[in-house]
């Protein structure tokens, strides 16, 4: 970890790497994030309507439940798990392949701090771009809930929109961002660690990629619990 915190050999090169990763992690993930978010929001809304059997609870509560579920849990945690699969495996296999094909040795020979050059821009890019991806996911999730609820005839548009405006707590967004940034750090560092310490050939690169995703996912779930316990209780 201490190897990552260094003065860059050349700031412009690190900046180029950073912008490349921002594009890769952000723009490159939008498709899967949009698809997952819309369907996630739709399912949450339909399931909430299905479970809302008490006639005393107004139907607008569906919007509220969907909104809070998406903001507090589904967008930051579910999206991070999805991104762990997509980005985590890509980081571990990219760095792992560089290791087994001696590209990392080539960087070291040139006098470049390979861990900082390869990993630091990825960590910073993920920390910077993941919050935007998760915010987009929140909007799309809530919109997906509206589309499924209204088009499916489960809830009226007015009820849903009233619900998503009720008792909104802005801190929930802050909490979601804290989780997102933590998960971004976990995904990049854990996957990069597994890739960087790959030894062997193609088979080991595959194993590193799998380990990166598995350990990132486990840590995301553990830290999800820890952060919820620490911040929300």
């Amino acid at each position, binding site marked *: 970890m201490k190897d990552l915190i260094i003065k860059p*050999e*050349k700031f412009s090169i690190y900046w180029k790497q950073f912008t490349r990763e921002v594009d890769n992690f952000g723009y490159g993930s939008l498709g899967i994030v949009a698809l997952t978010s819309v369907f996630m929001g739709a399912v949450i809304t339909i399931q909430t309507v299905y479970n809302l059997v008490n006639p005393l609870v107004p139907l607008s509560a569906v919007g509220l439940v969907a909104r809070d579920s998406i903001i507090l849990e589904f967008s930051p945690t579910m999206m991070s798990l999805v991104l762990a699969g997509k980005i985590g495996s890509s980081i571990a296999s990219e760095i792992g392949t560089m290791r087994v094909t001696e590209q990392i040795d*080539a960087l*070291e*020979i040139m*006098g470049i701090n390979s861990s900082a050059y390869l990993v630091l821009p990825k960590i910073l890019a993920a920390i910077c771009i993941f919050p935007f991806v998760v915010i987009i996911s929140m909007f799309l999730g809530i919109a997906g809930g509206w589309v499924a609820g209204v088009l499916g005839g489960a809830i009226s548009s007015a009820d849903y929109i009233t619900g998503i405006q009720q008792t909104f707590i802005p801190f929930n967004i802050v909490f979601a961002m804290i989780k997102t940034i933590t998960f971004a750090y976990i995904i990049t560092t854990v996957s990069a660690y597994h890739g960087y310490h790959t030894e062997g050939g193609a088979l080991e690169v595959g194993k590193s990629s799998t380990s990166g995703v598995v350990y990132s996912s486990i840590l995301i779930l553990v830290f999800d619990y820890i952060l919820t316990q620490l911040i929300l209780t």
Partner: protein
Amino acid sequence: MIELKDIRKSFGGREILKGISTVFQTGQISLVIGGSGSGKTVLMKCMVGLEEIDTGEIKYDENVFSNLTRKERKPFRQEIGMVFQGGALFDSLNVEQNVMFPLNMFTNLSMEEKRDRVNFCLNRVNLVNVNNLTPSELSGGMKKRVAIARAIAPNPKYLFCDEPNSGLDPQTAIVIDNLILEITQEFNITTIVNTHDMNSVMEIGDKVIYVYKGEKWWEGTIEDILKTDNKELNDFIFASKLAKNVKNMGLLK
């Protein structure tokens, strides 16, 4: 000049290098030969600082490289070029960007100057009109030549080549050998080559070191190889029937 003094290196209690001492002279090609697992790649990795030695001393001219910290080694690293067995070209960069990479990192040259230098290096290794190709579009021999161009781009004083001919056909191997020889003489570089290729041994080596079971078993010139009665070295050099017959018939001079 690179000087090794009693280099020892172990992995997990198994001693791989058992006290190797030698000197590699400037402007010469020194070949390190030996069977698979003899320790020659570990020796090269120790020399360039990819592995730390347990005991001994590695000197680059008057500087004790092995005693330096990572930070202190940085200026020396910029004087080292290395050609890896597989080329180790960066997959995400094209040929021009690969060769330009060390220049981007450590020089303040303008883009035009860097492009001139890249083209000079690519021309030097007989590659033209390949600037925009990616490593996956290159043949094995072209990859090696791009790797050589990248290694010489920052004007290194020391050039290390780890089995530069492995996986190449005999004709391409000769082209690579001649290239290493010409570059060494032209730029007065200290060149060290790990090889299995007996053609290389006979063609370009100013000095040959035979590493056997982690020890420097034999050291000499190409002429000495033909006269030596060292059994292990003879078994290694003349392993093939053809080579044995040629030697027995007295055709080697």
